């Protein structure tokens, strides 16, 4: 199967490294970053692209753009891994539409287009007879979407709750373990590379809320938006609050929660027993699904990272290959 890649940052690099390292039967025919692009229908030498990107800061020809790859390259599936824009979803929405219009499958890790335009994009994919997969948008390496689609097929999902932001989980872990203030723990998260220079999206629960919106729309198709999420972040938590929770055998975690029957769509710091399955240290993510037949299922794993996120993307690509491309 031929693939084209848009975005060569943390995630894009992870995908390329795994394509080069593993014999997955995926051939790269187009690639673009923000400044350049490169096309080769015979297959691009991945090691050379990675080396050039590292040395020169761009991956290809500076006269070419992502649009050239999306509209002209010869590929079966587009891998869209450009930065998330939670307000407009662009340029990713435009990229995805252009690929779908060409009857190309799309795999993305980008939360913006899926949170903002999932309904439209999914309808478009259906009309064109191709797949739109976005496993990597929620909880990184954890195969949430595959579990919903296959492992839990036929189950009614009654509710879900989980830890969907690793940065917040790290900060809360450090506040509880060392009695750090929120500011101190945030500084530590920055030093470890877990938090952005502007941590707003993470610590105010926006990132978790976006993932919650994606999950709710995927599972219940209920058209909820980011504004529908009742959202409280962790930036006002005190070390005393964590100590008081600790004295009661509990701790505090940022929990994203959806329960359509209770009209609940919420991201908020919550008190959990220390033995609760959603209490773990560090940057991990987890999701508990409450279903009618399987009852509770909890998945725990890496919520971010270069190769970890590539795992989710490659899972989607191989699913598409097995389902559409190989049979054709």
């Amino acid at each position: 199967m031929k693939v084209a890649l848009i975005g060569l940052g943390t995630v894009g690099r992870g995908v390329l490294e795994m394509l080069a390292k593993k014999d997955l039967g995926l051939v790269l025919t187009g690639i673009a970053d923000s400044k350049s692009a490169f096309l080769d229908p015979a297959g691009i030498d991945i090691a050379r692209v990675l080396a050039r990107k590292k040395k020169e800061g761009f991956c290809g020809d500076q006269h070419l753009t992502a649009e050239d790859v999306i509209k002209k390259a010869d590929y079966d599936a587009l891998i869209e891994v450009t930065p998330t824009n939670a307000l407009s979803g662009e340029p990713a929405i435009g990229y995805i539409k252009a690929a779908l219009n060409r009857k190309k499958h799309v795999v993305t890790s980008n939360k913006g287009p899926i949170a903002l335009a999932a309904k439209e994009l999914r309808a478009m994919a259906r009309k064109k007879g191709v797949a739109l997969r976005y496993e990597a948008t929620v909880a990184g390496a954890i195969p949430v979407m595959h579990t919903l689609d296959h492992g839990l097929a036929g189950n009614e999902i009654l509710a879900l709750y989980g830890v969907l932001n690793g940065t917040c989980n790290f900060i809360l872990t450090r506040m509880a373990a060392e009695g750090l203030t929120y500011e101190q723990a945030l500084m530590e998260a920055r030093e470890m590379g877990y938090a952005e220079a502007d941590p707003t999206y993470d610590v105010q629960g926006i990132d978790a809320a976006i993932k919650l919106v994606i999950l709710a729309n995927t599972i219940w198709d209920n058209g909820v938006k980011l504004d529908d999420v009742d959202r409280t972040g962790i930036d006002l938590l005190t070390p005393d609050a964590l100590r008081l929770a600790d004295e009661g055998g509990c701790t505090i975690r940022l929990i994203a929660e959806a329960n359509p029957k209770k009209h609940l769509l919420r991201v908020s710091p919550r008190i959990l027993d220390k033995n609760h399955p959603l209490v773990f240290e560090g940057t991990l993510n987890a999701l508990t699904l409450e279903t009618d037949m399987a009852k509770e299922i909890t998945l725990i794993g890496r919520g971010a990272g270069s190769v970890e996120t590539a795992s989710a993307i490659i899972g989607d690509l191989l699913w598409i290959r097995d389902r559409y491309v190989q049979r054709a």
Partner: protein
Amino acid sequence: MKLEMKDSPGQLVAALKPISDVGGNIIAVIHQRDPDPDGDTLNVQIVLELPKGRIDNLVSLLKEQGVHIQRIGEERLLFQRTVILIGHLMHTGLSDTVDQIDSTGFAEVTALAMSMPGVNERSSSRITIKAVSREDMEAALAILRRVSRQKSLLLIEPLEDLS
């Protein structure tokens, strides 16, 4: 528990006194004047918290007072949840916050732990609420949510019921 007693002044007091004698804690007293047509007896439902193993002692004390026990409900009916409040708790009247729960008659703040940070810093407190039923607990938490919003306090709720 549900008690039946003569509708005379003093009877209720007679029924309540043994409860404290055995170390119990009364959470709510609910008068029910129906369904007795004669109206000369009083039905009272008392929700109370009792140390383990004291119930037999209480029953015999009540009988001595001439109080008829219609029904003793499950001890497990007591719902408990612990929340944490963060903010300017003192400036915004912590006792009023607690009062808004206690005055419902169906829920009560049974424990409170406070942090003592510097003046003008936000304080934190852990509050344990008990209520008779799940619905009452939900109602109590709804009140707390409203009060927290009004007073700009950060309310941290438990993820699951701890009953």
